[in-house]
């Protein structure tokens, strides 16, 4: 970091909160906002707030993991239904196309689940929208499909929505406290 911020002044010290190099003339850390020149009370308060954010972060990360697992679960469901349908309705001329479509969908959900850690908001929002479209298309072809496994559907959508909320919170906390 020293090469990025060539700061003047004789002494360069490290921020006690985020370990970034700071100039000894700085009152606040430029990277995390830690009060370098504040009294002990202020510094303790800042670190306390940061630790609370760290605990929140663990909670949000868990919800993110649930959302990613829901995406994996969907991938599994599509592979399974595709294969079962293919073997039951072997004589249906569309059977192979439907199998292929299911496999493509499964692959997309698998990829979204895999990248959910790196790009949480993008992956979970995409997964939820794709799932919504699949449900709507199934309902248009056969309205009864809406009620197939409706509790599971609600649970998955719930996990995904919680995942989106957590992703927003994580983005915010990362910016605010320089956490990883």
């Amino acid at each position, binding site marked *: 970091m020293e090469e*990025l*911020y*060539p*700061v*003047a*002044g004789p002494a360069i010290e490290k921020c006690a909160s985020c370990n970034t190099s*700071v*100039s000894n*003339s*700085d*009152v*606040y*850390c*430029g*990277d*995390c*906002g830690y*009060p370098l020149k504040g009294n002990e009370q202020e510094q303790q308060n800042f670190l306390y707030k940061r630790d609370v954010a760290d605990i929140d972060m663990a909670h949000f990360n868990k919800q993110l993991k649930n959302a990613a697992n829901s995406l994996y679960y969907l991938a599994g469901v599509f592979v399974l239904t595709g294969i079962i349908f293919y073997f039951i309705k072997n004589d249906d001329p569309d059977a192979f196309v439907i199998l*292929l*479509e299911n496999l*493509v969908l499964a692959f997309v959900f698998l990829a979204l689940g895999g990248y959910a850690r790196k*790009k949480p*908001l*993008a992956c979970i*929002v*995409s997964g939820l*929208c*794709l799932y*919504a*479209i699949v449900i*709507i*298309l199934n309902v*248009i*072809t056969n309205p009864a499909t809406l009620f197939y496994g409706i509790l599971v559907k609600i649970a998955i959508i719930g996990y995904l929505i919680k995942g*989106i*909320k957590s992703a*927003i*919170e994580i*983005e*915010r906390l990362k*910016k*605010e406290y*320089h956490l990883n």
Partner: protein
Amino acid sequence: MSENTPKDVEITTCSQCGGEVRLNSKFCNYCGSRLSANSDDFGKSWTRLKEAALFYGIDIVACCLASFVGIFKTLGWSLFFDILMAISAILFFAYNWSENKHLLKWKSFSFLKLSGYAAIAICCSVIVHYSVGWLNVVIFNKDENYFELLRGNLAAEVFLIFFTAVMPALFEELGYRGYLLQNLLRIADKDQAIYITSFLFAIIHMSFISLFWLIPFALFLGYTRVKENTLWYGIFIHFFFNLTACVFQILAAH
């Protein structure tokens, strides 16, 4: 001690206290206030996301009904859904007018650049047409619908071009690269916002085969829009892309 700061450090001023701070700082070194412009709190971000969900929900329902329900597969209904989506795009764009209006300006206009983008769009369209061939679905299916329905009408070709090249170019860009992308840029970083917009834009076309070229195409439009900071290049790229597809369609019909 700030007068000792070497010249090669980029400096900006803090909007709160006016102190000189390094350009990459997230917080002011003097007063501790946050420097990044993107500081919406959770409530605001969540409201933005719900608003975007409403916009996208309207589009999903309209597209699903228009493409998959038999009774809506008439010219009248197709026009109805196209106009509905256009109105929705305009309304959502206008709702956040103060944030979005700068996208309608075209400060960096350059004829050379525009021709370059048009050439890229036409090349892409030709490549897609030949590589995906008969598998290439959505735009063409829709074209065929119009074309079949309009056969015998003298103005059929003009109609076709208007409803498959002009309308989508204008209103999809306004809705997706305009409203949706601008909205998401306030919630997530640049890359994620562009990825989300591109994926949503691609899956709304309801075609498996098209996904493979729609996502890269949408990413290209998204990055162009962010780089140039105007909607107009995107609108022209989209227009030339669809126009080329239309020309293939008309040639095939003759």
